[in-house]
């Protein structure tokens, strides 16, 4: 793994960050209350629930789906979502024949306004190195085995365009409302490492 929880410097990052914040606050370059607000936004207000709303809306509203595929930034803006890392959003749709997968091999670019901040696995060296070169093996590790006649399209987010996958709507969901569909859509499905699971029929 990428050594995500240890300190490579022999000096706790917590102390260094605290010192940095104090110095920058003293110089008037940052405001601790403004930092609190940024943290609150990404801990509590922005996350994959936003993307799930986008997907559910696309499933139930063909006109919205059309606008989403044509100009995702504008269509997603209709739902009130936007902001940093969301200036150029693109929605890519999975079908029975095409499966989309999102990665950023050079850093960890991710569509924050719709998915929030990325999980550690998305930022891991294993995912960044392998998603482009052996996507089928990576998907298998996530429990997703794709048939040989399905084409995988891997989107390497190397510029400022940020991608969200519109997964296939699972069977057995025809009677569900948009709000119920939102509950089904996972972050992993919107990155492309999973499908949205079919719903067991009520007995």
């Amino acid at each position, binding site marked *: 793994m990428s050594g995500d929880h240890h300190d490579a410097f022999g000096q706790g990052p917590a102390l260094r960050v605290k*010192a940095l914040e104090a110095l920058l606050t003293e110089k008037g370059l940052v405001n601790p209350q403004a930092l609190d607000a940024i943290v609150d936004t990404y801990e509590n207000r922005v996350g994959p629930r936003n993307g799930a709303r986008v997907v559910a809306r696309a499933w139930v509203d063909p006109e919205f789906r059309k606008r989403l595929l044509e100009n995702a930034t504008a269509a997603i803006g209709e739902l009130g979502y936007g902001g940093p890392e969301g200036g150029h959003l693109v929605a890519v749709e999975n079908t029975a024949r095409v499966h989309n997968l999102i990665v950023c091999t050079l850093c*960890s670019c991710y569509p924050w306004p719709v998915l929030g901040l990325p999980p550690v696995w998305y930022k891991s060296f294993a995912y960044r190195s392998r998603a482009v070169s052996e996507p089928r093996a990576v998907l298998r590790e996530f429990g997703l085995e794709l048939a040989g006649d399905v084409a995988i399209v891997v989107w390497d987010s190397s510029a400022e365009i940020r991608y969200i996958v519109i997964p296939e709507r699972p069977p057995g969901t025809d009677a569900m409302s948009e709000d119920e569909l939102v509950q089904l859509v996972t972050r992993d499905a919107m990155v492309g490492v999973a499908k949205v699971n079919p719903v067991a029929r009520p007995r």
Partner: protein
Amino acid sequence: MNGVHDMGGMHGFGAVAREANEPVFHADWEKRMFALVSSLLGRGLANIDEFRHAIERIPPARYLASSYYERWLEAVETLLVEKAVLTRDQLAQASGRACGDVAPATSPRADVASPGDSPSKPRARFRAGDRVRARNLNRIGHTRLPRYVRGSRGVIIRDWGVFVFPDTNAHRLGAKPQHVYSVAFAAREVWGKNAHPRDKVLIDLWEDYLEAERDSRMSATRPARRSR
């Protein structure tokens, strides 16, 4: 730069490890680090390309041994020192470190010419369907042309419009705005015969990273083909 950050296609990192019920942040200092960087970039301390390049300039062994937010910390310390906002002494004193332990501020270098003022709406050299090749560029400075695609042939899928050029912008050498294209590369073109025949990699590439396929070395041995 051909740094360790350019990971596409590397081997040896093992399986993708996932964490159940992962929190957004794993420690309070990560929250503050994230907010500090958001705030400083928002104020224009550095542009996003300078910040990315500061991460890339972390020496490879340390890059690999650091977590995501540790890399942000080192990058932002580097930029603050380089831009003379803070000194290494101040950073060292405030966190109880020896000055030598503070991230070395390697001088940024670039081997791209300063473009001067470019037209803000440059014309697109390519359009959807054009066959192109990713150029074999090995920039010393910042670039967003991944190593794994250099020299490969692809097809323009879409023109995303005009964007600031990272290779110059990261070094404050100008915006050099130009078209960015979604370019499709067959997995087999990039990775060889063992790749799945249907799979593709789509990469967003600035116009300066691309050449028309008929201009390329390969086409010297074969008649140039155009899609139309």
